[in-house]
């Protein structure tokens, strides 16, 4: 009667035949009623007219199931802004995918929720920008959003479905971590993700407004540990801490091209949702290639798969199968070379610089009127 947690097993060798993927992030649209300052969507949002049509997404889901994908994450933008969200969910469930709807919850009508659950949606992940209306408005740029999220959470829980909350943490809301955890309990969520901001897209643009101080980060680590112990059996708390202050980088998505991938609203297939920042990579589209072909042969997937592409210090490092050199997008953004060691690593010659950058940005007092709210999404 053995069980192993597939999700935590990194890929072992340098260049074995890649395993089939286990997770697909389908970014159905970049449109969204909220305008979160930390949004990881690209600054260049794809327009509605460029979005894949219903039949194409269905074909992609069928191919994903065939290829071995287990979890399908329906995300965006706001996935429920797609008129065909129920039809797409039904198809995903029919081909055997486990569907996880990642939503802001605002603008999802109760009847739409019922239709989604009836269609076979397995799990809902609701984003939480703050523990009250004031912070939620400051972060998400929409009045009344907190109340609507609360109502949505209740509707999900009342129907007996599991709910996960996802709170992206940054300077604007870091003081609310304990209250967010309490709200999660009050809402009846089974799980909460306390995810410190990753600096891509709009978050990178707003980094100076978002970067918390090391002291505040350390405090949240303690708060999370205390709550985890106290709420055992009631609420699972998963936490991701910022790696600007870390010693080693994070294993990004289980390794490049190893476990998960994403498809953009227009159909580009990416090894990670921020991969388009690496401009020299060639991304294949679902319009021209079967998903399996992209996964096994796509040049963007081959580029940083395994360990052959590594330079020193990663190349001769004993941790190279543990973290695969960290995040390629962060290496590019901070060091200027996507094949460099992630500067979050102490062994990187640039490591001190990012610690300094985090310290100086977190100490800087930016003018809150200068924060860039995300655009709602091009028509």
């Amino acid at each position, binding site marked *: 009667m053995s069980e192993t947690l597939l999700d935590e097993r990194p890929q072992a060798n340098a260049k074995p035949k890649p395993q*089939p993927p286990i997770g697909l992030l389908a970014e159905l649209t970049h449109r969204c009623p909220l305008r979160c300052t930390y949004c990881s969507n690209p600054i260049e949002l794809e327009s509605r007219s460029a979005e894949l049509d219903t039949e194409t997404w269905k074909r992609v889901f069928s191919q994903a199931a065939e290829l071995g994908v287990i*979890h399908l994450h329906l995300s965006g933008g706001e996935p429920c802004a797609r008129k065909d969200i129920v039809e797409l969910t039904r198809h995903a469930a029919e081909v055997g995918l486990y569907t*996880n709807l990642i939503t802001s919850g605002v603008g999802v009508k109760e009847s739409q929720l019922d239709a989604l659950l009836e269609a076979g949606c397995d799990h809902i992940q609701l984003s939480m920008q703050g523990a009250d209306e004031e912070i939620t408005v400051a972060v998400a740029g929409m009045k009344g959003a907190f109340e609507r999220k609360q109502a949505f959470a209740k509707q999900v829980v009342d129907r007996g479905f599991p709910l*996960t909350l996802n709170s992206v943490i940054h300077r604007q809301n870091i003081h609310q971590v304990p209250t967010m955890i309490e709200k999660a309990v009050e809402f009846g969520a089974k799980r909460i993700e306390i995810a410190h901001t990753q600096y891509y897209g709009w978050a990178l643009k707003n980094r100076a407004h978002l970067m918390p101080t090391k002291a505040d980060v350390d405090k949240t680590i303690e708060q999370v540990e205390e709550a985890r112990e106290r709420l055992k059996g009631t609420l699972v708390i*998963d936490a991701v801490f910022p790696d600007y202050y870390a010693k080693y980088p994070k294993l990004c998505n289980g390794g490049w091209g190893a476990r998960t991938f994403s498809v953009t609203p227009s159909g580009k297939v990416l090894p990670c949702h921020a991969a388009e920042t690496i401009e020299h990579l060639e991304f294949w589209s679902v319009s021209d290639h079967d998903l399996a072909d992209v996964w096994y042969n796509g040049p963007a997937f081959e580029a940083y798969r395994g360990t052959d592409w590594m330079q020193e210090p990663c190349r001769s490092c004993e941790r190279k199968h543990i973290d695969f050199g960290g995040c390629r997008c962060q290496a590019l953004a901070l060091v200027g070379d996507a094949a460099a060691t992630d500067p979050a690593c102490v062994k990187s010659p640039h490591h001190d610089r990012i610690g300094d950058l985090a310290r100086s940005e977190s100490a800087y007092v930016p003018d809150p009127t200068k924060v860039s709210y995300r655009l709602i999404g091009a028509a």
Partner: protein
Amino acid sequence: MSDLGDDTVPKLPHGVKFREDKARGGYILVGPERIYNIDGVSVEILKRVDGAASIQRIVADLATVFTAEEAVIRPDVEAFLIDLRDKQMVVL
């Protein structure tokens, strides 16, 4: 040893699916953000967890299939299901 009543009906909660994993072989139990590989006798147990069959029925059925004593199988079945319940993957 834990004791589940004869009439306990195990079932998979919303958000948990048990299915074959054709791409990699074997069976998997899938929940939000987690995947467990299921093998051997466990597969046969979960195949019978349909939200209608009681523990007693499941054990009796397995005893026939494996030509084994019910009393021998039962503790294993219970331990397996209780472990999954603690992981929020089964409701008892």
